[in-house]
């Protein structure tokens, strides 16, 4: 009967590499923290840490949603514009409410409700067009990206939409206040990350996402409702964008054509740095969270030190992204060779 010799051939190196892959992003983050502290001890001051966590919340929350889309073999380029669009509409709606009904907590709740509906709706549109109209996700979301960006520019008449100062007063604590010394945006980020992790690793939905991203045919032949699951990933993504926008609006109280520019790329970068495979089939929510922290920490370190100009932030991030993917690819390549 069959002998397992060549199958076993792949074994010696495997366990070790898998560990490296899982722990890689975490190691990188730790390294970055050590580096940051060495360059400027203020890096580890409580205020700065809170600052990093709060700032990483926007990209982090969006990136958790992106983890599902990418794991299921899709991509969503529209998230940055979607955030700007949602922020714009939220502000218009809240300003309108302030004018017609006066200001109360309901003004803000109305804005939040509006954001959730828009996020879920926008996600559904992306999902529907990719699955039912069978247009590639890249193209669909490239299209919606342009649409949302131009709509917000149109609403703002090329300028800035500002939230009425009365509403701003009520809404402000959502970004600036803390619970147990941890700011609310960070709590939202933590909640989204935990729910996302459970969804990915402990429910059938997560397993189906990985199966679809890994091989859509196999998924279909295994009785998985491929279109439905894929659509849900985009809806989840929309919901995450909506949540990120809800905590973003009170920060500046305004939205313009420049809001959320390049967020889609930062979110994708966080996902990839975290170890999720861009082609789909393998998703790591925990890695994504670390990826978001790494990206924010880089910017922060550049701010705190004089060695490299802050204007080179994008360049440093770019190098990190390419290096992260190269390390993952490298170990995969070696494993493949060992398997043969």
């Amino acid at each position, binding site marked *: 009967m069959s002998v397992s010799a060549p199958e076993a051939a*792949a074994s010696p*190196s*495997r366990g070790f590499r898998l560990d490296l892959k899982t722990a890689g992003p975490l190691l990188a983050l730790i390294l970055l923290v050590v580096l940051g502290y060495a360059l400027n001890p203020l890096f580890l001051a409580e205020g700065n840490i809170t600052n990093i966590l709060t700032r990483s919340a926007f990209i982090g929350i969006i990136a958790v949603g992106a983890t599902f889309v990418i794991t299921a073999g899709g991509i969503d380029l529209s998230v940055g514009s979607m955030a700007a669009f949602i922020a714009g509409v939220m502000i218009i709606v809240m300003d309108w409410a302030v004018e017609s009904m006066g200001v109360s907590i309901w003004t803000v709740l109305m804005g939040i409700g509006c954001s959730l509906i828009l996020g879920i709706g926008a996600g559904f549109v992306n999902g529907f067009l990719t699955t039912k109209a069978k247009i590639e996700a890249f193209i669909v979301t490239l299209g919606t990206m342009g649409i949302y960006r131009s709509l917000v520019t149109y609403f703002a008449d090329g300028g800035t939409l500002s939230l009425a100062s009365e509403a701003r007063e009520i809404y402000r604590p959502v970004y600036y206040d803390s619970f147990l010394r941890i700011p609310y945006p960070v709590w939202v980020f933590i909640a989204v990350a935990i729910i996302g992790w459970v969804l990915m690793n402990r429910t059938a939905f997560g397993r189906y996402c990985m*199966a679809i991203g890994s*091989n859509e045919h196999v998924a279909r*032949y295994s009785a998985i409702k491929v279109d439905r699951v894929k659509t849900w990933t985009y809806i989840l993504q929309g919901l995450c964008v909506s949540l990120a926008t809800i905590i973003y609006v009170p920060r500046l109280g305004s939205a313009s054509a420049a809001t959320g520019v390049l967020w889609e790329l930062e979110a994708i970068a966080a996902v990839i740095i975290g170890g999720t495979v861009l082609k789909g089939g393998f998703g790591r929510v925990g890695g994504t969270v670390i990826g978001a922290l790494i990206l924010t920490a880089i910017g922060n370190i550049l701010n705190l030190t004089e060695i490299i100009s802050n204007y080179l932030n994008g360049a440093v991030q770019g190098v990190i992204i390419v290096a992260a993917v190269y390390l993952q690819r490298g170990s995969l390549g070696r494993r493949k060779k060992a398997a043969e």
Partner: protein
Amino acid sequence: MAGQGEPAAPVVLAAKRVSKAFGEVPVLFSIDFDIRPGEVHAIIGENGAGKSTLIKILSGLERPTSGHVELDGQPVELPPDGQAVNLGIVVIHQELNLAEHLTVADSIFLGRELKSGPFLRLREMREEARRILETLHVRIDPEARINTLSVADKQMIEIAKAISRDARVLIMDEPTAVLSVAETETFFEQVDRLKAKGVAIIFISHKLDEVMRLADRVTVLRDGQLIATVGTEALTPDSIAQMMVGRELSNLYPPKHEPDVDADTVLAVRNLVAPGVRDVSFALKRGEILGFAGLIGSGRTAVAEAIVGLSPVESGEIVHKGAPVRFADVSKSVAAGVAYMTKDRKGKGLLLNANLKDNLTLLTLKRHFKGPFLDDKSETRALERAVRRFDIRARDPSVRVGQLSGGNQQKLMLGKMMEAEPDIIIIDEPTRGIDVGTKQQLYHIIAALAAEGKSIIVISSEMQEVIGLAHRVVVMREGRIAGILEGAEITESEIMRYAAGIKQGGENERISA
């Protein structure tokens, strides 16, 4: 034991005491192997015996750990990454390596285009391609795109490519695995032609009859050891099989238990029309194994996919346990107890990058919930059960399924389907590309399932398999049923006659046959 009847042409390519280990795991032990011009040398052995590793060493894709390779009697270190082509050693892999969007002529000249300065000499390459294809007696347009060709034609292009490279040694890994009977015959003719030209041909095969038909010498490997190199004339399929497994394979096929005459009809298909299916009617009884034979593309898989809802039914009736049904998708058919196991285990059956457990439970994940969450323990138990029941062998359960041998993948896929506890099981090509020992196991499992009262449809291009397993055989041709055979009628020649369209007719005319 080396073949004495060979002409004394000097050896072209040889392996001398070649051993290979991956890390600490040895896969080949001191193998001697040689081939002469104009000779066909088959390498056979079970999955995992080391055949693929041996041909990788002979073609330079792997370095031997000890021992060496000789070309024309001189020790050589073959260049890696397929560059051995320049020395006249050409490999045709099981998964054909053709760029789907290129034309035939482009493919044949890929990597060694004819050029004038920086420009391609397109017309010249087209003409040359046409000439090469003519010498092979195949009618393929040099300007056709690869993705418009059949698998058999693609393989011919690979052979044409090898010829255009003046191959001295042609190495083929299971060349006929994806070919139909007629295509295989054409392929054999090509091999004879190449042989007459003095090309040395090494091929791996699981099909003993074709080894007997083609090879001059046979090398048998088992567990990485060289068991024997023997002249084919001294062999019978039985003796080869024995050498491969190291024990006697007395009964490859289990005895047939005919279903009761008055057993219920569990599935009746009437005048089914679907993509690739034109008017198909048949009935399946409880406890029956119904074989589906026919050429590749005759519509057998299309019938199965229409029944389980993978492709739309255009008209006709499917009656399942007395009630007309039309399954909208696989989840519906599985829920009703009708399961289909695809023939394309790598493309449609298994997630090669996932582990055994995730693959096993993918079809039936809903059975492993604890509240809204997945119950890992329950999944692990399911895997333990399946491993025991289907004798799935993996180094450890966390390996990726892509690293398993074909036989173990097939068993895992069967296990995955059986997790759904279906009553009607449609198995498409149950043993494609797997070794004879595992085949025997699978046949016994299939027969045991039928004996339990499950009803089974076996679609197979290996006629022996259909004949050995099925109680009745449906022969399809061009989307229609050409004939349904029973009892003593089930013979290779009879199936072939219907499959090739020499004989026609539904059940009524058939009686005179």
